[in-house]
């Protein structure tokens, strides 16, 4: 809780610093604040304030682990922002403040125990993002991303609310435990509850961009500023999954909802991977691949067991690390090619910047799930979970789709390692170099020592 308050205050402070025009001190302060929050989370100080949190939130190990991860992601992205915003002076404070506010929402999402809090947290996280997506003020595409995100997000919120309302109608409570107990007691017979659960889950499925609620994600990913795309792909996704799993963790899902979710998983896997096959725009490729990874994560989500949170956590963290690194690489090539975001700009990278190319390869291999990268272990554990749960066909599909996934990642690797005589000279700032190296090493390190990434 203290971390949450620290973060909120940090956001306000950043805002005021922006008003005061203290542009140069913004990032140091923000990083310091985040480190402070992380320290509080790690130390476990003031986790729960009974007056505030009783019945609303609980900072159990699950919430704590995810909160730490979320803060770390934000921290990495802020470090990335040092370079990303090095030439920009206007509105940086607002953008950073909004990111912090969204982080507050995300942290709450990881620890809620009440549907009301969940709804509020989702909105607290989403509303800043609607704005951030349009953060590039003079870019039409950024604006388009913003409005698409907003419209679809609000629309989905409507369904989400309907769902919570129906659940409330059925069990007269917003309390997660009560709802879960109700699911076990009367879930199968209660149509009202069934509908409520369906719509609630739809709302969350929108946040994780599962088919058919994925339409926003490619457009928004592509149009948003890269930093924000990375933010969505890491913090938002992680928080959404944390919340999602928290909702159904102890819930005995009605058979129909369960079947629907499996179908949704299958569709997500199919669509995300197959469409990504034809993408040449790197951000869009990552957007579709994000949908694809949503599919794998949902497969894990649907396989309840003592290890599921661990697997989810591991998957999300390693996935986020890989994508952060790749987004940084993207900005590097984008700059060198004056705004081109297609994978063709990767060509010749091995010649001009071998280390970047190798790290890119590691990150992509991790996303693809090739052994000795964390991505492999993540997928492996997901498959293990889902087969333990007995989803033979869905797992089979997932495995097949993992293969499709390998194809489009490998295409990118191929580009990076194809010699190009007039390859663009890449300039890599020190911070970015350190960051991508960190990501690259991390995905290998966590593959060898996955126990370091346990909840």
């Amino acid at each position, binding site marked *: 809780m203290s971390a949450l308050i620290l973060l909120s205050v940090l956001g306000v402070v950043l805002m005021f610093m922006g008003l005061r025009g203290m542009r140069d001190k913004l990032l140091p302060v923000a990083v310091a604040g985040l480190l402070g929050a992380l320290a509080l989370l790690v130390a476990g100080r003031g986790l729960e304030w009974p007056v505030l949190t009783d019945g609303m939130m609980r900072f159990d190990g699950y919430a704590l682990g995810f909160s730490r991860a979320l803060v770390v992601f934000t921290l990495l992205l802020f470090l990335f922002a040092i370079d990303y915003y090095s030439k920009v002076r206007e509105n940086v404070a607002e953008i950073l403040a909004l990111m912090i506010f969204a982080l507050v929402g995300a942290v709450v999402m990881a620890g809620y125990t009440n549907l009301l809090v969940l709804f509020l947290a989702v909105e607290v996280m989403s509303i800043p993002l609607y704005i951030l997506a349009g953060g590039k003020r003079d870019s039409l595409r950024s604006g388009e991303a913003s409005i698409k995100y907003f419209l679809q997000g609000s629309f989905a919120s409507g369904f989400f609310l309907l769902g919570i309302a129906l659940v409330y109608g059925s069990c007269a409570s917003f309390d997660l435990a009560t709802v879960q107990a109700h699911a076990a007691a009367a879930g199968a017979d209660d149509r009202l509850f069934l509908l409520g659960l369906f719509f609630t889950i739809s709302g969350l499925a929108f946040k994780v961009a599962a088919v058919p609620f994925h339409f926003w994600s490619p457009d928004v990913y592509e149009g948003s500023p890269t930093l924000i795309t990375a933010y969505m792909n890491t913090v938002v996704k992680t928080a959404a999954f944390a919340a999602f799993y928290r909702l159904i963790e102890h819930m005995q899902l009605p058979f129909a909802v369960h079947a629907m979710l499996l179908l949704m998983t299958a569709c997500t896997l199919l669509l995300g991977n197959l469409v990504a096959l034809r993408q040449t725009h790197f951000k869009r490729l990552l957007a579709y691949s994000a949908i694809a990874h949503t599919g794998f994560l949902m497969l894990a989500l649907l396989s309840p067991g003592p290890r599921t949170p661990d697997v989810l956590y591991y998957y999300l963290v390693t996935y986020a690390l890989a994508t952060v690194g790749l987004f940084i690489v993207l900005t590097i090539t984008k700059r060198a090619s004056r705004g081109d975001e297609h994978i063709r700009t990767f060509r010749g990278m091995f010649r001009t910047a071998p280390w970047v190319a190798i790290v890119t390869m590691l990150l992509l291999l991790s996303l693809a799930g090739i052994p000795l990268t964390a991505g492999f272990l993540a997928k492996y*554990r997901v498959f293990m979970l889902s*087969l333990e749960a007995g989803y*033979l066909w869905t797992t089979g599909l997932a495995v*097949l789709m993992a*293969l499709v996934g*390998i194809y489009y990642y490998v295409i990118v690797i191929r580009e990076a390692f194809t010699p190009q005589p007039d390859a663009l000279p890449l300039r890599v700032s020190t911070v970015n170099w350190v960051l991508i190296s960190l990501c690259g090493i991390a995905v290998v390190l966590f593959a060898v020592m996955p126990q370091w990434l346990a909840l």
Partner: protein
Amino acid sequence: MTALLLLLIPFVTATLLMVLRPTERARGIALGSTLASLAVALVLWAGFPGGTVTDLHTAWLPSIALDFSLGHDGIGLLMLLLTSVAFPFIIGAGYGERLRHPSLVNALLLYTQCFLYGVFLAQNVVLFYIFYELSLIPVFFLLLYWGGEHRRSITVRFFIYTLLGGMALLFGIVYCLVQPGMDGSMDALGRLQLPVGTQTWLFWALFLAFAIKLPIFPFHGWQPDTYTVAPMQGVMVLAAVMLKMGLYGVVKVVLPAVPDGALYWQRTVIVLSLVGAVYAAIIALRQHDLRRLIAYSSMSHVGVMCAGLFAWNHFGLTGALFQALAHAVLVLAMLYITGALKERTGTSGMGAMGGLKLRMPRLAVLFMLVVMNGISLPLFQSFVGEWLVFNGLWEVDRWLTFMAVTTIVLGAIYMLYAYQRVMLGPDKWQLEVHDAGLRDHLVLVPLIAITLVLGAYPGPILELVDGPALTLLSLFP
């Protein structure tokens, strides 16, 4: 701990090569490393007491059935020896085909070697899988960077197609691992005893990877193109060693885990293998590129080996495993000669050759000796394996044996035709080429010596596989 050395020597050398990039001495260093590995492997062989030797066992991630446990039995040792023997020659071939960035090439080759050792040493299924997939990556880059025409699409196609099997294998392995009582060790696979219905479908999940890797008809689509495009050393790795991973996988994973499934599909697989063997042998006749010819010939040989494995009896198993070594030696020599010819004529297309014996009598003799092994004349290594396989197949079905035996005719047809097109006939092109030199002799003579020695006295190798094969058969319901 000696086994760990096998992993470490190539790995460390490769990393050093990557970092230090010594252009001139890269080949020499790599060669030294592979020879050191060979020495280690020979030490392992000398000290091999039989049974299964556990070299190293470290709990790594017991929660997901992943242990770092290394070991070997006779079959594993055979594969280790095969790898160790093959790699010095593969590196040596690099002196002929001088690729750019020799340090990188050799580093990639050594990484491959390391991962291959891993595959053959792994005593944990997941570890096996990890190494199995990893071994593909250096080869991918080798093809991508140093391949010939159309390498970009062909490389990716090869990679994806191989991984199609890999993913199926992953699925199958995970399915096995979530069964109660599985601790992830290779031995435990043999104790699974899944229901027959499950085994029938699980078989394909496990087998597909190896079927593609080997490759078995009709999963061989990737092979001819890849062999044509890849740099010679890459093809050598693929054909001589990586292909054997397929056989090893069948023996170590498929047969123990799903014996009933294997039995259920036995006919299908044998028929596919043999149809492929005959089919490839027929097609090989019309190939105009030596490498494509080798691709089909390799497929033809592999078809017989795979049929031997699935004969699921002692002769078939030992024959197929012996043949694995024989085939490695054969294909190394064939490819080396192709490389030597390409070095001299600038192509591996047979249309641009002919009458070369006039110019290169020594190479012609060496080639002839290799061809003799290729058409499995007795007293050459290939014959031993094939004879055993034929005997194994006989116990399954006589007509299948007949099919397998026809390959000795078809093999002779295309092999001799190829030899004629390359070496014999009038000196059409008047190429100014030099005859086989010291390097060529250093590579080819030992290879031929191995085939002859083991062809006349296969005892030491057969001894290695005899015991494990019996153990494997005892799993048979």
